Structure formats: structure tokens, C-alpha cells
């Protein structure tokens, strides 16, 4: 990590701590005591982090470089977010079909052919049917039903 990044993190932590203390002014004394203690701790820790990096002029332990495709990471976040957020509208079955199809494409690094496509469709359908049956009928877990479908 660069020193600048660490100083920035320290500043954000201290700022967040200050926010906790300021926001807790509208609560009762009892309700505000713990947020104030947490806020104060964050301010102290943020200042320690900043001071350590500014005085010692040494950065913290190096992190491994980010490997792989950022586009795939972003696509994963987008697809799983759509999957989760669309549950109330599409319901578990349709939202999962969309989510599973999207994540299969994003996590694939090999060339598609007719056989692979068929294996994936049948495999995913069997796995989903098994777990859906187990959760919905075996364990009686209430799964989200869609408003549209």
C-alpha cells in the first residue's frame, strides 16, 4: 500500500468516527454512549494510522497485485446485484435462471460448443431443481415469489 493511500484511509476512518459522534448527539445519553465510544476509537485509530505513515515514512505490508479481468469482476457484481434485487419482481425461479445464465457466461474461460452448452443447461437445471425442491418442499423454506411472474 502506498503511504498516500494509508493516510487517506486514516483520514476516512477519523472522519467516519467524527460522524458517529456528531450523529449520536440526537440520541438519549444511554443510546449515544456506545456510538461515541466507537466513534472516538475510530478517530484515535485513524490518527495513529496517519501519524505512523507520515512520521515513519513507511508503507504498510504490500498487497498482492490484482490479477485477472476487472471487466469480469464488474460484470459479476452487476449480474448478482440484478439477481438479488429482481427477486421480488421475477421470483426465485426466473431471477435464478437469469442469474445462473449470466454468471455461467462470466465465469467461463473455454470455448463454447453444442455439447458444452447442453451439459451446462442440463447440469444447471438438475442442480437448481434439486436444491429448489430441497429448500421449498423438503425444508419448507419460504422462497421469494415474483410480483410479475
Amino acid at each position, binding site marked *: 500500500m502506498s503511504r498516500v493511500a494509508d493516510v487517506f484511509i486514516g483520514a476516512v476512518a477519523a472522519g467516519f468516527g467524527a460522524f458517529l459522534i456528531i450523529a449520536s448527539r440526537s440520541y438519549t445519553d444511554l443510546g449515544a454512549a*456506545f456510538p461515541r465510544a466507537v466513534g472516538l476509537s475510530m478517530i484515535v485509530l485513524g490518527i495513529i494510522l496517519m501519524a505512523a505513515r507520515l512520521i515513519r515514512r513507511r508503507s504498510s*505490508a504490500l498487497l498482492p497485485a490484482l490479477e485477472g479481468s476487472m471487466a469480469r469482476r464488474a460484470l459479476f457484481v452487476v449480474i448478482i446485484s440484478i439477481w438479488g434485487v429482481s427477486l421480488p419482481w421475477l421470483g426465485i425461479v426466473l431471477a435464478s435462471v437469469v442469474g445462473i445464465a449470466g454468471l455461467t457466461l462470466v465465469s467461463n474461460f473455454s470455448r463454447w460448443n453444442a455439447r458444452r452448452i447442453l451439459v451446462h443447461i442440463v447440469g444447471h437445471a438438475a442442480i437448481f431443481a434439486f436444491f429448489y425442491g430441497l*429448500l421449498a418442499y423438503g425444508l419448507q423454506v419460504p422462497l421469494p415469489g415474483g410480483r410479475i411472474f
Partner: protein
Amino acid sequence: MELVGYAAAAATPYNLLLAFIGVTAGVVLGALPGISSTFAVAVLLPTTFTMEPVSALIFLGAVYTGSTYGGAYSAILVNTPGTPQNIATTFDGYPMARRGDGNLAITLACLASVVGGLVGAVALWAVAPPLARVALAFGPIEYFWLAVLGLTMIASLSEGNLVKGAISGCLGLALSLVGVSVVSGDTRFAFSSPALVGGINLVPAVIGLLCIPVLIDLVAVPQPHLKQEGTVGGYRLREALRICRRGWVTLTRGSLIGTGIGVLPAAGGSIASLVSYSETRRASRRPEAFGSGEPEGVLASESANNATVGGGLIPTFVLGIPGTPADAVILGALLIHGVRTGPSLFTERAPLIYTFIFGLLIATILMLPVGLLMGRYAYGAIVSVPKTFLVPLVAFFTIIGSFAIHNDVNDVVAMLVLGLFGWLIGRVGIPAAPMVLGLLLGPIAEQGFGQGVIIGTATGSVWAQFFGRPIALAILALIVATLFAPYLLRRYTRRIAA
């Protein structure tokens, strides 16, 4: 002679079959992220209504102990604790799996779970009434100090990046503040959003913070999820037994910590496994190895969480106060079968209770073959399954696991937001694990602190409340000792070496 009769009653073919089915079902359910031990016991409770009380108890005990161990599978193989009790198992179990030692980690988890489960069950048999009386002496102040003891481990989990680890822990504490305060009733940091009034739930937060970052990085590279080349196959039972023999102190300590914390009402397996992990790390000669695949980390966590099964049943049976949420379901089963709990239970209903304890011991021993066999196939499946199947399946469980807790899509959103946040802070060197601890311990610490202040104000001295009670002082001494002992020990060792 009576004990032989109880053992024989527990070992009837029908009870053995129930114990086997219970352990198997428990392991399967516990392995599914989001399905907690409480859920597993609760969902199978109706199947026991027509059984004899002792058979029902043996079955539910087997489900409970099996699910506590089953959570280790997903903790080790996909960094997602199947139940909150297995959070600490991810710290070293997942790094072990990544370097190709997943089967060894699972075998170690199984052996440690069996040892912990046996110690907890023996404690239930031998020292239930006196231990339950000690638990009654725990008031809010003692719970506050217990939570502080848990929070001291935040520092130990982040060696090398101490300040950032502590910042992460404080972020977890801050997350625990969201919603209605249990102490004052204030609605805090909800920003007028009904979704936040109920607070941030632990399970979606754990799934998001620990699992989503793994998935985000998994889809970005073509390499397999877990190392396949050069890995040793099979159960690796001999190797695991050697590690257990070497780590017998860790197993003993974890089992005793698990039993002790299990006795405390509402403390539970997650805190027990974290305290055990932290203490093992502090006592270790090479604490720097923890967090990067140290087998003793798995032993510490899994022995402690399974020991809470027997430990938690002690206050349940003797006082009628459930030690863990799953014990509350078992307490319900007892009431359904017309069994009244209380100090006289061990004398008035001795055949029922002692037969159940033997049944629990049998179920725990059965966990060894069942757990090893299922673990081997779980490891083989996860290693050989292509990413194109693994990623969507794990993502499905992160979503369902978050949703199923309260049937609330807001929990899914919270899981996704925290998952992305966990990945981002990981990129700037802030670990997510201390945040999970902060979220877990925050409410316990705040409630104990708030109630302590109220009692202290009413009795005239807040200081006397916090620093004048013998058990509180003992825990305080433990906090000071655990904070400074490793440092002083290192200095002493260096001086001797010089």
C-alpha cells in the same frame, strides 16, 4: 449399573438409526450457507412429535451436533461459514484448501468436532448442576467484559496490520449500531429507511463480507478455485491424527472454552470458536502462521463450537434457560413431550436425561465415519467442479442463505453491499474478519455496558459494578493477561536465548 442400563437404552437399533440419520441430515443442512444449526433443528422438530421423548432428544441432538460440524465444509472449501459457529474456521481452513490441503482441513475439523462434542457431552453428564449455578452468577457486567475479551482478539487477528484490523473491528461495531438500540430504544443510523430499522443481520453480513469477495476474484482468473496439482488425495487421517496428537493442548483448550462459553446463556458457538481461536493463536510459538493455513486454527475453532452443544444443554436442562438458540428449540421439544426442566430433572427424570446424554455421545462418535466420508466427497466435488457450475451455485446459496433468515430481500441487498464493501476494503489492506467480530460482539457489549450503567446508577456506584464483582474481575484479569502475556513471554524467551 444404572449407567449401563442407560447406555443400553441409548444404543437400541432404533436410536442408533435415528442418531445416524440425524447426524447425516445435520451435516448436509449445516453445510448449506445460511442454514444455521437452529434452523436445522427447528425444521426437523416436527418429525419428532410422534417419537418417544428420549428418541426425539437423541435425534435432535444428533442434528444439532452434525450441523455444527457440517458448517465447516463450506467454511473450508468456499470461505463461507455454513453456520455462524464456523466463522473462525474460515481463517485457516480456507487458506489450507487453497494450497491443496482442503481434505486435511476437513479431516481435522471432523476429529476436532468429535473431541469437542465428546467433552461437551461428558461435561453435561458430569458437572451440569454446579456449572449451571456458575452461569446464573453471570450478569450484564460479566457479559460486557466477556464481549470485551472477544474484542481483544480483533488485534490478534490482524497482526502485521494491527491498526487496520482494529479499524475494521470498529466498522463492525458501527454496523451493529444500526437499528433500534436494545438498551435505550433509540432508532440509530437508520436514515429514515424502514429496511435499516431492524439492523444489519449477522448471517447476510457474514456471507457478504467473507464469500462475495472470493467470488469476485474467482470469476476474474481462469485458474481453478482450489489447487489441484500435486495435492495428496484421500482422507489423510494419519497425518490429521499426528497433528491432533501434537495439538492436544489446542483440542483440550478449545473443548473446555466451548463447554464453558456454551454454559453461558445466549453466548453460543460463534463466540466460543472465536475465543478459542484467539487464545490458541496467542499461546502459539508461531502466531504469524495463523490466518495463512495453520492446522491448529481449524482444531481450535471446531473443537470449541462442537463443545458448545453439550455445554449449552447444561443451563437448558438445569435452569430452563437455553444456552444457544438451537437449545431453545430443544427446550421446546422437551415441553412438547411433557418434560419439565429444572434442577430436579437429573434426579426425577434420570433415565430420560442420562439415556439422552449417552445418545449424544453415540451421535458424536458417529460423526467420525459420517463426517469423514461426506467430507471426502464434498472436497472432491468442490475441487473437480468447473467454475461455470461452482460460481452460480455458490452465488445461489449466498442469495438464498441471506433471504431465508427473515424472508426479506433487504437482507440480500445488505449482503451484496457488504460483499462489495468487503472486497474494496480488502484491496486497501483492511481485513473483513474483524468487522464480522465487531458486528457479532457489538450488541452483547453494548447491552452489558448499558445495563451495567443503569444498575450502577441505581445502586450508587457505576465503578463498583464494573470493577467490583469477582467474576468480572476474573474476566478483566484474563483480558489483561491475554493482551500482554504473549509480549512478555516473547521478551522473556528472547532474554533467555540471549
